[in-house]
């Protein structure tokens, strides 16, 4: 009964993963130079590749900023729209809209927000007499600019999980806490937060994966520029694989990327799991 699923899994997940690892030890085949075993050569060229290191550095900053910001924002929004108030449905929808939009469309919208001299940010800045800023065209602001887009896109998605979790928490807990005289902050810290822990773990794992997986907006907004300031690992991998056709090296980067992600996910599950109440 499980055979069809197993076959699909093997053909599309296990075999490619193993083949990628093998490819990463082989040279890139060319018409007159077949692929040969080169050992760790591809990994050695990775260590010598300054763009790889820059992409890795960019990606770490990107992850460090997007993960806490998007998760924190999601929790805050969920707590807010969970309360009873006028226009709650509308607010929830507004927060969720960025998630529904395709990333390509989002990136194009933001491209015009960031446009120098007449973009939205410039117009708002102009009202307050702020100097003109070329957000995406300046090495010091480009990475932060694309990070903001990612946070904007992701927070709404994570909010849905928090909202669902909040609604499954029994209202009697809140009443009991109120009778005991617990303040709102105390209630959040000692009751809500621990009960939300399983959701937080799930959201965190997703946020980490997304931080290494989202590149659509880079393709649309900066193509990794200026001078690699916004090149993320996956974007660099795409360039090596499908622009330079350097299959062996691309496989090596893939192995490193997947290895990193797997390690982080495992650590999250084992360490954070101990702190969660199911």
């Amino acid at each position, binding site marked *: 009964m499980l055979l069809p699923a197993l076959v699909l899994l093997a053909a599309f997940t296990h075999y490619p993963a193993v083949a990628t690892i093998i490819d990463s030890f082989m040279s890139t085949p060319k018409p007159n130079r077949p692929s040969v075993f080169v050992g760790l050569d591809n990994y050695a060229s990775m260590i010598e590749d300054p763009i790889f290191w820059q992409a890795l550095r960019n990606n770490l900053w990107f992850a460090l900023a997007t993960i806490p910001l998007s998760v924190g924002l999601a929790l805050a929004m969920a707590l807010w729209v969970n309360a009873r108030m006028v226009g709650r449905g509308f607010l929830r929808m507004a927060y969720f809209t960025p998630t529904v939009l395709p990333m390509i469309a989002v990136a194009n919208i933001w491209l015009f927000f960031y446009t120098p001299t007449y973009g939205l940010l410039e117009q708002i800045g102009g009202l307050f007499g702020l100097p003109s800023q070329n957000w995406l065209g300046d090495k010091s602001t480009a990475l932060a600019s694309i990070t903001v887009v990612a946070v904007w896109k992701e927070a709404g998605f994570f909010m849905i999980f928090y909202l669902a979790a909040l609604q499954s928490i029994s209202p009697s807990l809140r009443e009991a806490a109120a009778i005991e005289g617990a303040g709102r902050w105390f209630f959040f810290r000692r009751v809500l937060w621990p009960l939300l822990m399983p959701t937080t773990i799930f959201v965190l794992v997703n946020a980490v994966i997304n931080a290494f997986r989202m590149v659509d907006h880079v393709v649309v907004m900066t193509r990794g520029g*200026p001078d690699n300031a916004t090149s993320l690992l996956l974007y660099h991998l795409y360039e090596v694989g499908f622009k330079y056709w350097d299959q062996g090296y691309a496989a090596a980067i893939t192995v490193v990327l997947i290895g990193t992600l797997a390690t982080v996910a495992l650590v999250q599950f084992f360490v954070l799991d101990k702190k969660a109440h199911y």
Partner: protein
Amino acid sequence: MKCNFTIIRGAIATVAIGATVNASAQVTEVPFYFPVAVGGPITKYIDQFATDFNKENPTIKVAPIYAGSYQDTIVKALTANKAGTPPVASVLLSTDTFTLIDEDAIVPIDNFVKTADDKAWLAGFYKAFLLNGQVGGKTWGVPFQRSTVVMYWNKELFKEAGLDPNKPPQTWAEMTAMAQKLTKKDASGKTTQYGVQIPSSGFPYWLFQGLTTQNDVILSNEAGTQTKFDDPKVIEALQYWMDLSKKYGVHPGGIVEWGTTPKDFMEKKAAMIWTTTGNLTNIRSNAKFDFGVAMLPTGKKRGSPTGGGNFYIFKKATPAQQAAAFKFAKWLTQPERAAQWGIETGYVAVSPAAWDTVALKKYAADFPPATVARDQLQYAVAEFSTHDNQRVTKALNDGLQAALTGSKTAEAAMKDAQREAERLLKSYK
């Protein structure tokens, strides 16, 4: 990645078997990939071409397949080629010639040029458009959708600034001087209108090549094995570009987005812009003011790179398919059709004969700016292209962006780019 190719190969093989069974014995199938890189209903035009061609040639069935951007199309074509079943023909960037040869994916067009008529046809193209497709004494690509860089200027803003609206700058010095008059600042000292704008996102090397050609230097040798990024003339050209912003303040600082440059022009945020002729139809229909199109100004001489796509024929197709694809290429580039294609899209019609057709003559008379790109062709050079093209080009792009964003000097940026290019090209010498 190899794994993925294997699976795709399987899928394609299945489709291919299906196709062979279905096709009747006499009909030659020609799958044809094409990209869309400019505005307008391009797919509709291409489908119409294929339908008309198939009607005239009942034994051939050209099947056009829209494959995305130029980059998407070469990814698909080369992936299919590695899998063993590439398209029979495809439109790809003229600068992809070296890559396609190195991958052993295409055959020279000369293989099919046999009759006197064929020879006259191949000799009929503008020489500038053939350059990128000519390697090792052979012609590998047929010019199809080709463009070049031109300058657009806003006549209204020229008038406001006290300049003659019908006289665009002819030299670098004039461009700088005019741009200074055309740059406006508000009370707080913020620039609200720039004199000139040359985009630098994505593929800055293409526009930079305009500057280097004008400064009388060619960026690479014909064999595609040697670059000259650290030539003093190249550094000088880059310094001029940087100075427009840093020294004169007439050009926006940092990286200027390619995609929004036509919009900046239409919004009157830039009085003069450099961009492709392919934007002509777009700007013509959206600009609410009188504008002009001019050749790029001269430095030491006139110059501009060509750009756009060539028609290639793949090696792994059967001889019958290749012959059919050649017939289609020849049919597509007949003067009347090339003229029609140029009018519909804004691409430069690829042969002098096309410009002699009634349709194009009438179009040019109604809209004289359309002829500027053609007249500039006599000064045009091949678009920058080498072996391992995308990587070498990236080294140049990175260097240009580093200099334009101020993180390196022009000299350091070009020397670094040259060092990287030499490392990449070592194995091709």
